[in-house]
């Protein structure tokens, strides 16, 4: 492995760690906030998670609040899992650049693509739901969910498609490599 590649991978590793920690805090904050809102004190939760102003939505309709927050939590958890898997790739030395086409990495890429698809689908669902909420509330809660809208659903789906194509090419690469290994 060249020094440049090594440096690039180490930088990516550090960035992935930072994003993973951020996403875990995000998911954890959302879960704690929802728990406090639903079971302890809805008013106190307004000051809890930085800028999280979902109280108007909670007051507007509790079931809509639960659906909205569930979608937010699902997307946050899926994103955390995605970055956990990326870190796992670096940690368990699954990324062996001398013979990269192995079945473990192939399965890993397939799983990453499904996760990206999942994030895209749930984000799209959340986006439509928040638009619908804005419509039925006549703008009374639009400010609270405006900055929480699920952006980039199409980008995630696009990434999922690209990853699936990449995984299929990778699968072919694994076949070619194994054929090459068993050519005497």
């Amino acid at each position: 492995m060249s020094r440049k590649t090594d440096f690039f991978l180490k930088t990516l590793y550090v960035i992935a760690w930072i994003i993973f920690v951020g996403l875990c805090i995000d998911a954890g904050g959302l879960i704690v906030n929802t728990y406090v809102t639903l079971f302890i004190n809805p008013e106190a939760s307004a000051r809890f998670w930085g800028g999280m102003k979902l109280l108007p939505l909670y007051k507007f309709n509790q079931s809509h609040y639960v659906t909205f927050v569930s979608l937010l939590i699902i997307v946050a958890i899926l994103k955390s899992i995605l970055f956990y898997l990326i870190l796992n790739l670096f940690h368990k030395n699954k990324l062996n650049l001398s013979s990269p086409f192995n079945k473990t990495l192939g399965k890993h890429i397939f799983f990453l693509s499904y996760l990206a698809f999942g994030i895209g689908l749930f984000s799209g669902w959340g986006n439509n739901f928040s638009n619908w909420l804005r419509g039925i509330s006549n703008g009374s809660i639009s400010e609270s969910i405006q900055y929480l809208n699920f952006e980039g659903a199409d980008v995630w789906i696009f990434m999922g498609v690209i990853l699936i194509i990449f995984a299929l090419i990778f699968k072919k690469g694994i076949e070619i490599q194994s054929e090459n290994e068993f050519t005497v």
Partner: protein
Amino acid sequence: MAIVVNLDVMMAKRKMSLNELSEKVGLTLANLSILKTGKAKAIRFSTLEAICKVLDCQPGDILEFINEKKNDTKN
């Protein structure tokens, strides 16, 4: 697989060990073992030529085609 490798039969006929064949052909023991156990997916003409030269035989003596479908219907 329908192609069967009869390398062990030819080696037994010529009374040659795997080590000796490996030295004479210039293949590693691991690769020869892959070929002998039928795990190989392909064989290079150069390898086949070297093996035939050392064992003094034809490629047909080492490789054999068995029609699995025909055998299945017979059974």
